[in-house]
């Protein structure tokens, strides 16, 4: 009797996830548009238009026992900071598009436009997911200034605790938006414990932190 290899999950994720999640998204869109009474019959073969009003970029991640699965369609950033300070950008920011154009779940052949990656959970780290407005406030995806911001954010959480940093985050992002990109911003911070060593992240007893990115010499 043959058994599937242990690493099958990762390869199957890469081949199946984009197609299946895109299809599931369309099912939800259709269900919602029917509920709202705005559904139009599908134009078989090229029926993309009916989804346009729901179009969105999407970044997803699933943290498993030994793996981190990541998928992205459209712009935005996903960065993993390992405990030793190493920064990994598992999804290349290169999209082949010009300027602010981006792909979305409603794009034609959206299932082919996903970029996926799998990482070892190993020693864990911090996964930061952000909309493009954040990196655009610095020097763009994978830019040194943006990555410095990311690392300093992790340092702030380690120093002051996640709740304190979260409390200040709205003001920081509003300020970046005002000063730079002008775009709306969403940032998700995920603390990933090491594969076997499950310990609570951060120190919640700390004081109000400074705005991250102001003291780059820490890094």
């Amino acid at each position: 009797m043959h058994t599937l290899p242990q690493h099958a999950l990762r390869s199957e994720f890469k081949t199946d996830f984009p197609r299946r999640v895109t299809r599931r998204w369309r099912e939800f869109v259709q269900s919602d548009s029917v509920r709202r009474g705005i559904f139009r019959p599908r134009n078989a073969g090229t029926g993309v238009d009916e989804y346009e009003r729901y179009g969105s970029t999407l970044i997803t991640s699933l943290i498993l026992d030994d793996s981190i699965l990541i998928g992205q369609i459209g712009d935005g950033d996903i960065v993993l900071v390992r405990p030793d300070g190493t920064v990994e950008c598992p999804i290349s920011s290169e999209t082949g598009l010009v300027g602010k154009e981006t792909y979305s779940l409603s794009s034609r052949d959206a299932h082919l436009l996903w970029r996926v990656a799998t990482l070892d959970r190993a020693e864990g780290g911090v996964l930061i997911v952000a909309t493009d407005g954040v990196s655009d406030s610095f020097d763009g995806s994978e830019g040194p200034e943006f990555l410095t911001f990311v690392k300093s954010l992790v340092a702030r959480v380690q120093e002051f605790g996640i709740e304190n940093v979260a409390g200040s985050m709205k003001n920081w992002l509003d300020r970046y938006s005002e000063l730079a990109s002008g775009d709306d911003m969403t940032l998700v911070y995920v603390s990933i414990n090491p594969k076997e060593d499950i310990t609570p992240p951060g120190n919640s007893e700390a004081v109000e932190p400074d705005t991250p990115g102001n003291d780059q010499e820490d890094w």
Partner: protein
Amino acid sequence: MPLNIGQKVTSELTGIELEVIRKLGEGTQGEVYLVSGMRGFQAVKWYKPEQATPEQRAAILYLVKTGPPFGAAGKRFVWPLDLVTREGSGQFGYLMPRIDTQRFAELGEVWAHIKPVPSFSSLCEISYQLANSYRALHLSGHCYRDISAGNLMFDPVTGNILICDNDNVGVNRQSACQVWGTMEYMAPEIIRCSADPSTQTDLHSLAVLLFYLWVWHHPFHGEMEYGFHCWDIPAKKKVYGESPVFIFDPENSENRLPPDPDYAIARERWEYCPADLKATFIRVFTEGLRDPNRRVTEGEWQNLFSGIKDRIVICPRCHAENISCPDGQIAPCWHCRTTIVPPPVLRIRRPVGDSIIALAVGTTLRRRHISVSQASDDGSEIVGIVVQHPTVPGAAGIRNKSTLPWDAAFPNGDTARVPPGRAVPLHPGTTISIEGITVTIASPEDLVKP
């Protein structure tokens, strides 16, 4: 444990010390690192602890000792160069050449528009080289066992390819293997547990990969796959192994493409495929499913893609590539609907069958057109090339680029010896004897005459 930046590892057989520069990527079996040593920058695949087994170590040493298949076909394999170890660790990896990822693309990068979409000509070259390299590997007595798009990189412009992750290559029907392939590429008999990976099951995986390259879709992803809300292992076993049905099977409509946007690209790209390619896909995914002995061989794929590439004609209006029929006729341009006047062709009579090359300035006659290539040879040596006449506008000829003279016979009965470097005018009816093979310059009308 993964490797750290700056860490030193040792190339086992040569004793050369290598420094880890940075992580390049992460696969299912381990991580890949850029390393620096006295031979410059190279790459190391470092196995995860559970993959670093004595069997895998022995397999790597065997591959290092054996080396890749000979010739151009073998050079496309990014082959293990040496076993790599780290002091104080039972883990290991292997050294391999570094890949230029700016130049070479993965299929997923093309789908995501990060790298350019290959032209028909490049696609033919990619497909030809794939078949050519796997032919050489199989003739050397090895099977790959994990053929998939994830192991292929290609230059979208030239069509040159690289085959990566060769650490699972083994002796056909003998070696044990840690990898059973990616399920959607597995031959049905492997999924049904009635066979082990072999050169014969490689042929199925190769056909699936070629279908992905041309149609951007899996050959069995139709109504059956669409109907599974939960796409789990039992569902996959059913679609890929227990009852696979080709989505374009002309006699079984059970698994047609559903009317869903995800499937539009497959329908569209299938229509771009020339008739002989469609017929071959139909054969491999119908007869070849029922009887593995009837799968399309690498040699058949080679001849098919070489032949299709030779029939590409550029639309004079929009410059889109169009593929003429084997009889030289050509439909209106698929892109702008302009009527295309069929160009003159070179008809080649060989013991294995006739073939044609559509002629235009720059068209090349290659070694593979006039002789059966050896396992190690990709037949790409240029034997002749169509050139413009130096003084007469609109006139062209085919220049002898080989080292041996040709013998030409003209329609008026004259004959001439054509030494290397000289050209024969492109007059329909002219025959040229090249190394014992007769080629005829013909107008498309000549081809349809009985």
